[in-house]
């Protein structure tokens, strides 16, 4: 092999790109050929010098952190699961909402049942009312000092309703007013209580219509008071009385 052929292989020898056989042959040749040996040494020195000079730039620590953060499986996992977390959150909200709604429904149902019980029990009592009068100006003052609020009662002229009287009632350990109205042969109870937070939670909507054991109930909230009108009368009658009471309350 001529010197030129050996020299043509020096660069690949320095880059370790010759076959094993050629690498061995070149190593042997370099031990014998001063010219090729000098050439190989110089190229090796160049390679080393370029290697050192070429390692010039280093990334900033902040940049490294940023990239690390971007490709970190934990970070990516968070994004990967983000839709799942969002769905889970929506599910939790829905369940919580349903639970709150069902709890509220259950509680309001329970309260309505209690009021129906009071209504039935009072009517069955020997004295259904504690103040007997058809005059609203007599009945209303009777509650002064007995309940922590006041209210307005409607004028009943030209209506089918007659005020029978009133009595104290208790709901959730809160005193309230119970007014008994008669319409034809039916008795209707009107309960008025402070609209406490518990009542507000139980009746999340302002106006409620409900049917409990065939007793029809209309309920609403106005001026900090919660009204219940209930009885076995026609729902239209109850709604009409409720309308009169609302009108009086707003007047």
């Amino acid at each position, binding site marked *: 092999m001529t010197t030129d052929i050996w020299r043509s292989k020096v660069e690949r020898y320095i*880059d370790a790109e010759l076959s094993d056989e050629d690498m061995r042959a070149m190593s042997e040749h370099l031990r014998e050929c001063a010219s090729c040996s000098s050439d190989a040494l110089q190229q090796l020195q160049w390679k080393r010098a370029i290697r050192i000079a070429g390692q010039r730039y280093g*990334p900033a620590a902040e940049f490294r952190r940023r990239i690390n953060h971007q490709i970190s499986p934990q970070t990516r996992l968070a994004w990967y699961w983000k839709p799942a977390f969002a769905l889970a959150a929506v599910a939790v909200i829905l369940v919580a909402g349903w639970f709150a709604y069902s709890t509220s429904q259950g509680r309001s149902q329970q309260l309505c049942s209690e009021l129906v019980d009071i209504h039935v029990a009072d009517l069955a009592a020997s004295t259904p009312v504690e103040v007997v009068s058809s005059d609203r100006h007599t009945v209303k003052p009777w509650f002064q000092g007995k309940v922590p609020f006041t209210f307005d009662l409607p004028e009943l002229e030209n209506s089918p309703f007659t005020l029978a009287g009133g009595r104290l009632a208790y709901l959730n350990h809160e005193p309230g007013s119970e007014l008994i109205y008669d319409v034809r042969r039916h008795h209707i109870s009107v309960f008025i209580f402070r609209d406490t937070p518990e009542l507000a939670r139980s009746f999340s909507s302002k106006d409620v219509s409900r049917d409990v054991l065939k007793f029809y109930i209309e309920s609403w909230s106005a001026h900090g008071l919660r009204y219940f009108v209930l009885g076995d009368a026609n729902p239209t009658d109850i709604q009409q009385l409720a309308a009169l009471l609302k009108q009086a309350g707003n007047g």
Partner: protein
Amino acid sequence: MSTAQTSADQFEQLAMPLFDSLYNFAHWLTGTREEAEELVQETYLKALKGFSGFEQGTNFRAWIFRILRNAFLTSRTGLKAMPTVPFDVADEETVTAAVSEETPESLLLRRASQDAIQAALEQLPVIFREVVLLCDVEDMSYEEISQTVGVPIGTVMSRLHRARRALRQLLQEKVHGSCQ
């Protein structure tokens, strides 16, 4: 553990050890820290996105360096840099005997400072600078460089040879210029 997490773990294990090398290479290509950071970031995001397409058992280093290089070529700086190359590879001269006329090399290297070598590297056209950096700094084989740059091994050898010769000439000019 999910497949997605396993894949992300594997990518991180393969890619992060190459972070310094990729950044250094990117800075040499772009010339500025800002552009180098953009390029590296783009590279990592593209590589992560395309990692499912990476064939396991093949050369990851060449794969991710190739992504970086391709991203560079489509960048503003890359587009500006590449057309300045005076010739292409097909008709390049074949690898010939190592230059011996540039002697005494040892003396030249002794005189040349690291700054001078770096300045000479900066002056090399990108297609020559990149093969020198990949071979001498990154210790890539010709095969790896071929995969990274996307040219045949013969072209890699040719470019490498010409790049080294050009570097010596540039350095000679610098050293002799500073001695005069």
